[in-house]
């Protein structure tokens, strides 16, 4: 276990190196001059020259990469050209917001997806199964932004129950925070709930048809124990992997939801940065997301060990 973990950890270094090269390289392929994009409508040549110089845009590519990596290794992700603030500050400011959104969305996804998947597998072929499948199809095919708009129109404009936007930190006011987060978290979690449901269902169907389930039933266990202890526990292995992968997706995929509900998270940060050619911010956010993704995958692998005793051998 320890050797395995160490091996996995050592792999992170070259992976991140490649990620950093790709991020940096791809970004340079973005058409449009960042200094020009930043200089504003007036495009004053002196200002453009100043921006180029200040942010090393006048240096050759390898030098710029070197400067960036050197900074990153010292914990300095650079400075946003647009608002002159350190990228790390921006990330630390936005990350908790998106993490909360993703966490709540995951709660919705798990709370809806897994029970629905179990129900649909156990009641295979009944109206429950069809109902859950229709829900999954709906969840997968409803675009986030559209569902978001509809929910705003219903719960904010018509009923006036929930705020249409306006993020409040949970440390400032938990009630307002949850009020502002319920809708976006549901919208974001909805599609993942559908994926979760489908996977739980197929895993459960497979497990429920195995010999040990028949044995469990034969020895007279109540159905609840059979399903939850013997069935679900074994079916959860692929679902956990999926959960970790989807969580990584959530971090970067919250873009549209954050736009619709104007939540100041990662998604908005990166979209704005791409359009403004704010290179340092794009690089910082992508590097951070990539790292998060790698770590989450590692955690998922560790979770395998915990869920499935056979792997521990």
């Amino acid at each position, binding site marked *: 276990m320890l050797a395995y973990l160490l091996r996995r950890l050592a792999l992170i270094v070259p992976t991140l190196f490649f990620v950093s090269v790709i991020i940096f390289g791809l970004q340079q392929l973005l058409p449009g001059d960042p200094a*020009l994009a930043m200089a504003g409508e007036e495009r004053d040549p002196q200002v453009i020259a100043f921006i180029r110089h200040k942010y090393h845009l006048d240096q050759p590519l390898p030098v710029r990469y070197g400067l960036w990596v050197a900074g990153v290794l010292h914990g300095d992700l650079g400075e946003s050209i*647009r608002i002159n603030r350190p990228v790390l500050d921006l990330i630390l400011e936005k990350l908790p917001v998106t993490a909360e959104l993703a966490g709540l969305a995951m709660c919705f996804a798990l709370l809806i997806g897994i029970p629905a998947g179990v129900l649909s597998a156990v009641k295979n072929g009944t109206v429950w199964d069809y109902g859950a499948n229709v829900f999954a199809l709906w969840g997968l095919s409803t675009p986030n932004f559209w569902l978001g708009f509809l929910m705003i129109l219903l719960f904010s404009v018509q009923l006036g129950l929930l705020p249409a936007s306006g993020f409040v930190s949970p440390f400032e006011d938990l009630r307002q925070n949850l009020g502002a987060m319920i809708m976006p978290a549901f919208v974001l979690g909805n599609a993942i709930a559908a994926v979760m449901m489908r996977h739980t269902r197929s895993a459960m169907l497979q497990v429920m048809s195995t010999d040990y389930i028949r044995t469990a039933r034969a020895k007279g266990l109540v159905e609840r124990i059979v399903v939850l202890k013997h069935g679900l526990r074994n079916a959860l292995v692929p679902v956990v992997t999926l959960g970790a992968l989807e969580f990584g997706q959530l971090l970067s995929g919250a873009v549209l939801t954050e736009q619709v509900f104007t939540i*100041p998270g990662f998604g908005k940060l990166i979209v704005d940065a791409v359009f403004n050619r704010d290179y340092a911010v794009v690089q910082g956010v992508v590097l951070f997301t990539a790292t998060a993704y790698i770590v989450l995958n590692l955690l998922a692998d560790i979770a395998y060990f915990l869920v499935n005793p056979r792997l521990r051998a």
Partner: protein
Amino acid sequence: MRGYRTLILAGAIAAWTGAAAAETTLHIGLAEDPDILDPTLARTFVGRIVFAGFCDKLFDIAPDLKLVPQLATEYKWSPDNKALTLTLRQGVKFQDGTPFNAEAAKFSLDRHLTMKGSNRKNEISAVAKVEVVDDHTIKLDLSEPFAPLIAQLTDRAGMMVSPKAAKELGDKFGTHPVCAGPYKFAERVAQDHITLERFADYWDKANVHLDKVEYRIIPDSTVRLANLRSGQLDLIERVAATDVAGIKQDKSLKLASIVSLAYQGITINVNNGPLSKNPLGQDARVRKALELSIDRDAINQVVFNGEFLPGNQWVSPENPYYAKSVPIPKRDIAKAKELLKEAGQPNPSFTLMLPVGPENEQVSQVIQSMAKEAGFDIKLQATEFARSLDLSEQGQMQAFDIGWSGRTDPDGNIYALISCKGTLNDGHYCNETVDKELNLARTTSDPAERLKHYTAVAEQLAKDDPIIYLYHRKWIYAFSPKVTGFVPVPDGLIRVKGVSFK
């Protein structure tokens, strides 16, 4: 029973999420996130909206574009128009308690002129020296007469910053700006909100009625409107023209609008590299034919529900500097065809570049189909905005559907864009008469005299058509009926001084 339960649930949610707000806060929905909040370094239009809340200028403009005193109470040009003397308001304090006086004004102007990366330098580059005459008088010595200077002082170049704070924070001043406006900067969360608080020692505090102003950044106009309807916002800017009809029917909302200083037009590459070598770039008759094939009213009706104002000059027909001798030409397909025949190009073809976006795309499609009737074959090339600017500057375009956000002085809408050495003259149009008249208009501060020069420019441009001006957008605002005292101004900035709640 079920209905009853739903009601209790609804009530519980409402109680759970409802916030008690005792102080008065005006929530304004902005379409974009401002850049750095340092008047010297700032670049964006939306940043100017926020500055209007906390950073007073030497002068301001009224809805009719007339000059209004703000931190300067009077101005006087020297007879040769090469020196401008300003009398400063007395008893003014910056938000950190530093007094505003001639030294402070000189400091701010010098900062605009000399700070590295200053975006203001170009705007007031005619100022050679700022002199302190006495404690409340300064004199600006110019290297050459420059009439637009006064108008520049109604914008960021005229904003006064606290010398103490500016020295302390250096190029980080924008993270905590200190000015002499009605509200003071309190907090900024990038891409989310900017909060201002009432400044107790403001020189005109009788006109400051609210405790706080919060600018919330909501880029999507539909979402902005939904937030206004649900009460999260009190006032929103840049309402989509297509939403106006719906808002008018909604009794719970109010509308205000004003024709902006901006213009939208087609810039034609007449001499910038090989891509200018085509009938449209080389022959003024072909450009005139294109203009005559376009029905500006129809564009306004089809794309903007008739909310905008068609135009054919760099200032709108409502502007005092509009040349009345050059009216908007009527659509005339027969004449357009005749001109094309005369030019020996019955079916000229060109590519029209446009920044990606539903508005631009619709406008361009309408133009494409209108011009087709005259014989034009237009290919549309929708390009991401930053990229399109790049291509335009390099001459990698034949025609470009692009706007200009507009300046108070007409000079700001044309000089850099059309004069031979203009920094924004991407089509590389160059005409002696135009240059001469534009320069003459800079040397005199007499409006009648300036109008004469601008009329000469408009007449020449109508012959050459290097830019086919199309329309002037309106700044459209929607707000809650509880908001009173809001007055739109053509520069599009939201003046929160004087705004209160009923």
